């Protein structure tokens, strides 16, 4: 992974490139979280659940939904755009998947996500509406459609067996299938970002769209595809989440947008686009998930959680996310 993702930004050499720093610091912080959490449980309960593989796998299973959302979002952030429509794209995909049911449930869910992503892409690329505001509007439209569709209640339809299998089951009783889905999404993301012209075009547009356009990249098409990928990823996460809780419900995606942005940024991706490695996003997701689980083990009230959450993001970025000085 190290060598493959290096190819675009960092030169191949043994010295740490600027893009390795976030990954290493974030991974170090993950270890710190584990240590602090374990110290706490040893002190209060006399055992160390955090270090048991079973517990970690359980946490990663829950984290795989966030991981899939973050993978899609990262592609859009690399362009220098953002996708704020994630919450209701995810919810709409879950609701449509359970409503359609049968063998077409999963394609329907992902299709809804893809469709929302394409509309986002059309608005951002061809109409040149700032992504911040266009995806916000799409989020409101999807919310409106779903509220009108369900009457504001949780839909009565249930997730199909296949959806539940993908989200809940464990192969051999050990490895969660959801984790494998996340792994597959990750492999696709790494392949796209490092091994295809599309990936190179995404980084190029994130650095300077004008230059990308002048070097012959159809920037509008690339933006459209990136948003479609993000939408599809949110749709897939929605399908899995519906499988995990056996049904879709209102506002199920609300808890995913900000943690996903945080995970991508903590992983070293520049919020202005053009820089960042998928490995960083992966570590960022694990960091957020473990931080959450340690805080709930500590029975931290919501207020403390919010404050710690904010402080972690700022202090991580102070270490490696600082911009350069403007000097003309």
């Amino acid at each position, binding site marked *: 992974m190290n060598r493959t993702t290096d190819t675009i930004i960092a030169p191949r050499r043994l010295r740490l490139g600027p893009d390795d720093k976030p990954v290493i610091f974030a991974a170090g912080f993950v270890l710190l979280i584990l240590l602090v959490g374990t110290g706490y449980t040893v002190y209060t309960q006399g055992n160390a659940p955090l270090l048991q593989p079973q517990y970690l796998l359980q946490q990663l299973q829950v984290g795989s939904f966030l991981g899939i959302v973050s993978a899609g979002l990262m592609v859009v952030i690399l362009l220098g755009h953002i996708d704020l429509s994630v919450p209701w794209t995810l919810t709409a995909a879950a609701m449509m998947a359970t409503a359609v049911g049968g063998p077409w449930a999963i394609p329907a869910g992902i299709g809804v996500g893809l469709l929302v992503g394409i509309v986002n892409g059309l608005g951002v690329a061809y109409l040149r509406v700032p992504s911040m505001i266009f995806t916000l509007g799409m989020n409101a439209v999807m919310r*409106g459609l779903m509220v009108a569709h369900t009457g504001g209640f949780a839909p009565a339809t249930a997730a199909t067996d296949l959806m539940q299998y993908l989200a809940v089951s464990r192969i051999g009783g050990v490895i969660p299938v959801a984790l494998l889905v996340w792994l597959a999404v990750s492999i696709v993301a790494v392949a796209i970002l490092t091994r295809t012209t599309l990936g190179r075009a995404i980084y190029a547009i994130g650095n300077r769209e004008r230059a990308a356009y002048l070097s012959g990249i159809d920037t509008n098409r690339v933006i459209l595809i990136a948003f479609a990928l993000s939408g599809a990823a949110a749709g897939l996460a929605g399908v899995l989440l519906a499988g995990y809780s056996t049904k879709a419900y209102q506002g199920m995606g609300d808890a995913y947008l900000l943690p996903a942005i945080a995970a991508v940024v903590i992983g070293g991706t520049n919020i202005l686009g053009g820089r960042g490695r998928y490995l960083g996003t992966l570590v960022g997701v694990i960091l957020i998930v473990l931080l959450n689980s340690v805080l709930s083990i500590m029975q931290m009230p919501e207020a403390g959680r919010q404050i710690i959450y904010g402080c972690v993001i700022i202090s991580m970025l102070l270490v490696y996310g600082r911009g350069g000085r403007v000097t003309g």
Partner: protein
Amino acid sequence: MSDTVLTPTAAEPQLKTRRWGEGLGLRWRQHAGILGALALFLGLYLFYQLNHPRGFTGQILIQNANEVFALALVSMAQTVPVLMAGLDLSVGAVMTLVGCVASHLVDGSPAEIALGIVVCIASGAACGFVNGCVVVYGRIQPIIATLATSAIYMGLALILRPTPGGKVQEDLSWAVTSDLREFAATFGLFDDGEAAWLQPFAWIPVPLVLLALIIILIWVPFTRTVTGRTVYAIGSSESAAYMSGLPINRAKLAAFTLAGLFAGLGGLFLALQTSSGNADIPQAGAYTLNSIAAVVIGGTSLLGGTGSAIGSMIGAMVLRTISFNFRIFDVAPLLQPLFEGIVLLAAVSLGGLKLLRLKNKLEVFR
């Protein structure tokens, strides 16, 4: 009122980047966004009043003004960072935090109330100043820095108000949420509001007067200072602003502090209006997102450099008037979010028409 960019010397670096025309044409273009928003608002509001079952009354105007005030101030808060091509995702959280502070402090003797109000306003500005410090000295992108600080402010608000509640002084609450006559009567001013000279203005809702005062006393003076112009200059081109020797750091700190101040004033009013404090995370998020929408509708470019808080105030009025219209036309509440979304998308997509005017394809990429 907002031709601030045009007037004297410090605005020159920005003027030079303008592409089209001069004089009247330039003036018109610079205000096209605000004028468009104003026309949209007047059209929507007139439509609303004409179709209102009880016709135009002072009571309806007061109610509308009360509902607009907090969003208008939060949108004005959002405008200042947007002018320098940043974004403040913490405006809703600052509003909520100050509202919770107000629900503890704005009660008791007049002196205590006055002190409470001062503390509220100061805490709003302090939150903004912290944002500014993280952005300027931490050199973290505004959008992500304020995302993090908004979590911290919400945490503090939750500590202050784990459950909704608290109390603000009723007289004050009543006075600022009604019209000028009641305001004067509550505090025994001008013959209890019956003074003859006051009568022509007595119907004006207090929130509208407060909005006008905030704009005249804070916003307009701010844009006429070097610091204020530097905010615009940073939005146009930060490196050009730096090369011209403008005080960049000071302007950024001032911009975020001003944003915190505006958001805090909005929170203070919300606490007075609801007579309580409520650390409601979804509500804070909704205010933040609506403020971005209001800023865009008000003609401020998210790319920075052009626009005005006055436009954002009108944008907030447009957003609120849309929901007023839903109310009287009995649109099923279930369909309202859908229409709100479609109206927002349609409004911003109209901006796509300007692509047809571009002569050079490269202009598309800013």
